[in-house]
């Protein structure tokens, strides 16, 4: 039992229990049955003493702890999965747990990782990055001192869908959400989320769309409902999450390349007023002359319309005609919303 001078956990703090569970599972080479485990971990034993007949709650607690450990990168395995459920043994295999010996970092690399962790403005991702750093610190390397002075790169996620989607991607769970197309039409989407991408400050999720039976990219800011994890009823009382197979790396790569070639094929052409803000935005330099005509490729017509709205007074859209129309529609919507 922890004595006076040691850290005293709050009732809700599970770190002591998880730590002990980890030690026990690492310690035992053959693995332990649930029964043995419930006696080996102090917190479980206390629970067991309280409710000797029904250990349904304790079983649930153990399942939750296992999934917490998994979220933290620690795999509880079953050395002999074919055995009787009551005789099922649990263990943590040292080779899946311990840091691989051949992967080493030097002081510069650790410094870069420190900087990478500071990039996240989003609280939850920033704590994940910092927890990762604490582990790497355990390798004993002192990072080189930071000379990032002068730069403050920040990665932001404004979209509430970011966290549930990253969780679903990690756990390979299908999700549903309402998606509002740029034209305003809302529809329910059912997808297998593969990866979150940030392109020019816009977050999108690369998915397998179950209804379209095709790979699709969805902009997070157009997701207008909560992201719900899909479940299926297994019997009258219980349901379970709908999971999917981890996507293949080459499928993700193909999706990225598809989007790139789609972007390359869409060309916009503008006339930019000399020395206006748009002129500066497009970095057109200070050589003498008149207005300029420029063309460039774009990923999404409506995103481009949004970007160009800021320069509506400085530019004339030459092509495509839909872009000029999209910009007009946006301003009409603004005027109507403020009539």
């Amino acid at each position, binding site marked *: *039992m922890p*004595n006076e001078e*040691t850290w005293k956990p709050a009732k809700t703090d599970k*770190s002591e229990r998880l*730590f002990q569970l980890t030690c026990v599972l690492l310690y035992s080479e053959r693995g332990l049955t649930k029964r043995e485990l419930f006696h080996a971990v*102090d917190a479980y034993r206390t629970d067991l003493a309280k409710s000797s007949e029904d250990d349904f709650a304790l079983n649930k607690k153990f399942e939750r702890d296992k999934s917490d450990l998994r979220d*933290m990168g620690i795999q509880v395995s079953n050395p002999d999965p074919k055995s009787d459920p009551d005789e099922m043994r649990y263990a943590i295999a*040292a080779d899946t*747990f*311990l*840091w*691989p010996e051949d*992967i080493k*970092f030097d002081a*510069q690399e650790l410094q*870069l*990782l420190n*900087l*990478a962790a500071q990039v*996240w*403005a989003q609280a939850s*991702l920033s704590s*994940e*990055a910092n*927890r*990762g750093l*604490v*582990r790497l*610190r*355990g390798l*004993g390397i002192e990072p080189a001192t930071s000379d990032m*002075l*002068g*730069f*403050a*790169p*920040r*990665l*932001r996620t404004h979209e509430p869908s970011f966290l549930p989607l*990253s969780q679903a*991607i*990690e756990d390979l769970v299908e999700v549903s959400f309402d998606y509002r197309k740029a034209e305003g039409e809302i529809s329910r989407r059912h997808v297998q989320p593969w*990866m979150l*991408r*940030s*392109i*020019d400050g816009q977050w999108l999720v690369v998915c397998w769309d179950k209804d379209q039976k095709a790979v699709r990219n969805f902009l997070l*800011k157009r997701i*207008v409902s909560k992201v719900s994890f899909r479940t299926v009823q297994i019997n009258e009382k219980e349901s379970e999450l709908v999971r999917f197979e981890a996507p293949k790396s080459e499928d*993700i790569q193909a999706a990225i390349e598809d989007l790139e070639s789609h972007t390359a094929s869409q060309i916009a052409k503008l006339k930019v007023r000399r*020395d206006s*803000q748009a002129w500066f935005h497009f970095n057109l330099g*200070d050589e003498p002359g008149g207005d300029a005509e420029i063309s460039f490729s774009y990923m999404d017509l409506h995103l481009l319309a949004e970007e160009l*709205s800021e320069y509506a007074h400085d530019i004339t859209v030459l092509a495509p005609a839909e872009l000029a129309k999209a910009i007009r529609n946006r*301003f009409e919507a*603004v*005027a*109507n919303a*403020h*009539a």
Partner: protein
Amino acid sequence: MPKLKGFNGEDRYNFLLALVGYLGHRGEVSIEEVSNHFDLDADYLIKALKSLNDATAQVGGFEEWPFYIDIDLLDEGVVSMTTAEVIDDVPRLSTRQVAALSAGLSYLANIPEFAANADIKSLMQKVSSGSGLGRSELISIAPGSVEAGAETLRDAILSNRAISCEYINRKQEKSVREIEPLRIDLTAGVWYLRGYCPINKAVRNFLIEHMRSIQILEREISDVATKVGEIEDATYVAEATDTEVTVEVAPEAYRLISEFQTLSEPKDVGSGTIRTQIKVGHLPNLGRLIAKYGGAARVIAPEEAREIVRNYALSALGAQGREIDREVE
């Protein structure tokens, strides 16, 4: 920076694993060194070490102590741990830890200093091979464009010098300005310079893309500028003369909220649309700021602000005369 006071919950668990791994590598070490290495309060560290000593593992009916900390040495300020060999190194990273670190690294690659750094790619590789579950492709950041002036500005910041540049403001007015640069922000692909403006006597945000012909001056930045402490992270710095504006934003325009200082907790008014109050410095700017969201952001009050946005939209549509244009900054 003051040291961390301690950890709770998941963070404490995570730290205990790292600590055990560290001590396994390091052998006998002073409390001070461990406390500096983890940037952690020494008292908390001692408590954590003692709790390791108390940890037991019942295996096969026997009570085992996986860690033994020499308490006498600990009282003298030295940490010495004997451990069963099963847990003598740090654990692998979780999938989420790998994702957060890798995405952070790929965002760093946007900065001139790191853009050419081949280490970043190999480092990302290394980080993901330390993943416990072997998956790393959760989040990816596509490389953006590096703003041309950023490197010059950074040289100025590191040498404490003022700069001059040609700047175009929101009113489309071009002028040559002197700025005392403090920090370069890269937020959602947009580069800003936080700088002290000697004319306005205040820290201002400058869009780096609106700068041209940047020159580093001989003169150092003023005392006032060096004394600017923490720079706020919000792009917009509020002032007393600001106007309170009530807005409703749909998910497509949530970004607007983080660009301003909000005065009230955003309230959900249905189907993802939230209502909040923001502070606006120069009201005429609001037209451009709100209009770019194409109706996804809506000003509710005051009427004056609504009119500015309406007129901006109408002028952009060319439905109104050029007169209104002059109000727009």
